[in-house]
């Protein structure tokens, strides 16, 4: 099912990764025929996908393809018009608040801009989920948060405010907060956006290392091709609210679907110009 691990990249070989062949385990996240609209505009149209335990699944697509909207639906932040999102086997739109709360304790999210609480230090941000959801004493909470900051190479930064961090540090701090409760599923929105190639590559390595060390399933939303090809077991290509294809990196690279090919090889689309529609847009007249 997944791409064979590269021998030179030990980080790709994860303990607990779903079997490459044979019986597939129950998906950790399953989306069935999801439809979402903003007003009258349909932004997601019949999305279906399944994320298997232990895999790194990348959702890739251009700007306006519906990636962020899909992520919001997977997180239960938006309600779909129709369709289902099953997280750990439960439809997140049909369960009560307490059950959703329990499910969310098993997941971690790193937002595109980090979404760290600006009024708290980095350390307090990382401690926040532990203080809210556990009865651990303050000393233990601090030790655990420092451990996670070590994992993301931010040791010694716990007293800094989010405004004092660089873009890469912000993403890593957000990642530390996302993993502090040892989630089974991690959502990562645009890990490489706005970062230079070196920091971006470091973050890719960190994602691979996390999967290896924590036996964690990771869903990454990105439009960065290099990053997607480096970390993904499987990639889902999204375009105009629809899934073009789902497959391994090699399958995506070898796809003969024109729009997938165009996305991978950065070929600009030649829009077919409807002269009448164009004039109508210019003049505003029917």
């Amino acid at each position, binding site marked *: 099912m997944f791409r064979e691990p590269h021998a030179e990249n030990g980080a790709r070989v994860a303990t607990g990764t779903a079997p490459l062949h044979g019986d597939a385990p129950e998906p950790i996240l399953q989306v069935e025929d999801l439809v979402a609209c903003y007003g009258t505009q349909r932004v997601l149209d019949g999305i279906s996908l399944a994320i298997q335990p232990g895999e790194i699944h990348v959702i890739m697509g251009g700007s306006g393809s519906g990636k962020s909207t899909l992520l*919001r639906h997977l*997180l*239960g*932040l938006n309600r779909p018009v129709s369709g289902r999102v099953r997280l750990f086997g439960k439809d997140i739109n049909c369960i009560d608040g307490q059950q959703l*709360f329990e499910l*969310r*304790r098993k*997941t971690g*999210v790193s*937002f*595109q*801009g980090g*979404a*760290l*609480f*600006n009024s708290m230090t980095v350390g307090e941000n990382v401690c*926040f*989920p532990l203080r*809210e*959801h556990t009865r651990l004493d303050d000393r233990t909470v601090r030790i655990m948060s420092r451990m996670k900051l070590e994992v993301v190479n931010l040791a010694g930064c716990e007293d800094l405010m989010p405004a004092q961090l660089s873009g890469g540090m912000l993403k890593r701090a957000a990642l530390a*907060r996302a993993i502090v409760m040892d989630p089974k599923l991690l*959502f990562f929105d645009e890990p490489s956006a706005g970062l230079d190639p070196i920091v971006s590559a470091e973050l890719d390595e960190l994602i691979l290392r996390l999967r290896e060390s924590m036996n964690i399933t990771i869903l990454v939303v990105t439009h960065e091709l290099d990053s997607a090809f480096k970390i993904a077991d499987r990639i889902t290509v999204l375009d105009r609210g629809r899934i073009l294809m789902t497959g391994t990196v090699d399958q995506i690279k070898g796809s003969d679907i024109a729009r997938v090919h165009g996305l991978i090889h950065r070929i600009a689309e030649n829009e077919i110009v409807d002269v009448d529609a164009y004039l109508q847009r210019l003049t505003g007249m029917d």
Partner: protein
Amino acid sequence: MVRVFTENLGRRVVGGVEEFGYGAALLAESLYWLTMGRFRQQPVRLAAVAAEMMRIGVYAIPVVAILAFANGIMMALQGVYTLRDFGAESQVIPGLAMSITREFGALIVGIVVAGRSGSAIAARIGAMQLSQEIDALRVLGVNPVRHLVAPILLAMLVMVPVLTVLANFVALLGGGLLCSLQLHMSLAAYAELVVANLGVFDLMQGLIKSLVFAVLIALVSCSNGFAASGGSEGLGQRTTRSVVFCIASIVVADMIFTFFLSR
């Protein structure tokens, strides 16, 4: 033309009803978390309440004191000069005592807190909404109303009445200083007259109003913050709207309560 007007009117009415309903839901949910949170192992944090009480109440003491003092002097001045023409200067003190405790103490505090804290709350929650911090709270399994609104509501309910008591005292002091100069009486005699003319109901009237103002400021500013969208422009609009709606709702609520409580 008529159709467009009717459509716009209908849209605004629906929007207004929706906003009122959202505010009511925020109030109900906040009260739920304040009373039931502890039993659900998700209490409203006292540290957050204390921090809000500092921002809303303690840091507002200087500006409330200055405004109340100036207002007390102005009211005494107006009273002395107006009533002098009728030879009724001695009636300034009862008028001053009742109008400050029933009306102006609470109103001054309401307007100061709406302008100072209402705008800050709307801007803070709005900025959190735009930077996805509210989303982050949700996905971390933390209810934003419990974490953000309930502490603000509780802090408002405590601090606005406390500031009102302070404003009453300082405004009466300002009026007393003016009266002692203009009417050639001692502050002790002034204080005796004030106490003699004030009943518990006069004090309670102002305090009841201050509680209503506290709820209005908390709900209007929080709901405007949560509704922020459209970047910095949208955040600025929501902050301005929050202050305008807070002050307007305070004045209207004051009028309604004065009508019923004075009968």
